[in-house]
């Protein structure tokens, strides 16, 4: 683990919205090839941190670097071209495009050299098959279920050929069977060599998939470690997981 290369690195990452400290002095390192979990109560600054990484908000202080590129000051599309794909928490499908076309957008623009629509479509078929969505490829996104939309988000990010995938609560709103299926998909993506940073409230998924987990609370990092360490961390139990979880888990 110590000889793995850090693919994403944050030093003193801070985001202020006026007087509100959404993210404050957070340091982290994501190693190449790992699944890195990001948990914490609502409003802890998890999504803000992802927004800082993908360039939606500019940093107030600190520095984020990805594969030796400083991300500070880069626009969202430049960061996407470096190889960071993103699935949103609240599904942001492109209305008016079919499921397949949505994924195609990820493929066409994710890397600067794939602007051919016809070639792209056959590539997209493979990605859709991978997330088991090929049966609904012609559907309008408004006609699909929430589970399908989440898969579509994932497929769209995956079609960008990212080195790093940012997943924002892809499990939310899914039933148990769907969660299990999606966990397998995420593991398979990771096996392909793609590093993953995932925000998740579904503890089963976080504990089952992540190699390391960072816990945010009120914008600050309160813990960072393996799932076992996190599950037994008193601060985390107090602020987020609750007593019952640690008892269940320690059994």
């Amino acid at each position, binding site marked *: 683990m110590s000889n793995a290369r850090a693919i994403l690195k944050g030093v003193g990452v801070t985001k202020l919205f006026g007087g509100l400290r959404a993210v404050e002095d957070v340091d982290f390192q994501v190693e190449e090839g790992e699944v890195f979990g990001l948990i914490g109560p609502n409003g802890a600054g998890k999504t803000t941190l992802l927004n800082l990484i993908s360039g939606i908000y500019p940093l107030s202080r600190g520095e984020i670097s990805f594969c030796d590129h400083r991300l500070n000051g880069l626009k969202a*599309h430049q960061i996407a071209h470096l190889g960071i794909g993103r699935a949103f928490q609240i599904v942001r499908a*492109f209305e*008016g495009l079919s499921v397949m076309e949505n994924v195609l957008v990820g493929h066409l623009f994710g*890397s600067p050299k794939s*602007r051919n629509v016809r070639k792209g479509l056959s590539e997209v078929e493979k990605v859709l098959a991978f997330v088991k969505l090929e049966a609904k490829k012609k559907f309008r996104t408004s006609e699909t279920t929430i589970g399908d939309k989440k898969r579509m988000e994932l497929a769209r990010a995956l079609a960008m050929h990212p080195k790093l995938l940012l997943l924002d609560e892809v499990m939310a709103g899914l039933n148990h069977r769907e969660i299990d299926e999606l966990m397998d998909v995420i593991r398979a993506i990771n096996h392909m060599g793609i590093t993953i940073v995932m925000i998740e409230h579904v503890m089963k998924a976080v504990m089952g998939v992540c190699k390391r987990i960072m816990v945010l609370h009120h914008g600050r990092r309160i813990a960072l470690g393996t799932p076992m360490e996190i599950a037994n961390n008193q601060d985390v139990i107090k602020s987020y997981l609750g007593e019952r979880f640690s008892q269940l888990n320690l059994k």
Partner: protein
Amino acid sequence: MSERESRRRRLYVYIGLAVFALLVVAPFFLRGYWVRVLTNMFMFAILAESVNIIAGYCGYLALGNMLFFGMGSYIVAVLMVKLGLPFFPAFIAAGLGSCVFSVLVGLPILRLKSQYFLTGTVGLMKLLEEIVRNITFTGGGQGLTLPIFPGGPQAANIFFYFCMFGLMMAVVGATLFISKSHLGYAFLSIKSDEQAASVMGINPTPYKTIAWAISALFTGMTGGLYAYWMSYIDPVEAFQIAPSIKMYLMMTLGGSATVIGPVLGAFFVEFISELVWGRFLEIHFLILGLILVLVVIFAPKGLIGFVGKRFKLSDYLKGIRQNRV
């Protein structure tokens, strides 16, 4: 399924070719009046399609798009009257001038969103109108009189008919190309969610600028052609807000973000307008408004939504349910 689809596609191609052939021979058989009506329809089809590229595909509601129309018509007028250039170079200059101008103003103004962009374009149009009105080089408030097309009214009818027709085919071709290429996907993504689009690797600025530049190119050329056709142009005629609104009516009616929808919409509105206008001058806008309301309620995707579908009442009731306030 796919066989039926391809058969249907072939049918559309045949219909398209038949209409094309009909329109090519039509001016040799119709009376001058109807040739001019058709030319007018083509003109609005070009304008509606141009708006469709920036507003329908890219989601930027350029209500003041007629500013390029005015600009194109003034470029042609000034070049022909003041510099004595022949029509075709002036016509090309009208397109290119509008295109370049759209890029120059687009870079700052396309940063505005939704209604702010809309207002900005209208402001820009009024600004140009005032400039044109107040400098003598453009003839001031009196306007400019262009040279009349040589060869008599019959030849003029045919000439402008085919110029408009050719330009319409060009803009439809351009839209078809856009819809099939990565440009179309970029435009639609920007329209739907600009921020998500940029996270997917789309740099919105160049794409928005390209969309508006294409729109301006065709609108400007149309304006130039119109000025020569009417052989007179003044600031009020060149920079009108009413045709801008009509273009949106046509686009929405026919089906925005589709290739052929705005053309259908333009033909439909102009045809109805022509029929109604002669008989009920006072209420003809009322009737057009009523048609628009009905279409928006029953077929929010526009007239093109009817094509290739069997009539099912439940579909239209669904339209009402989804679109009621």
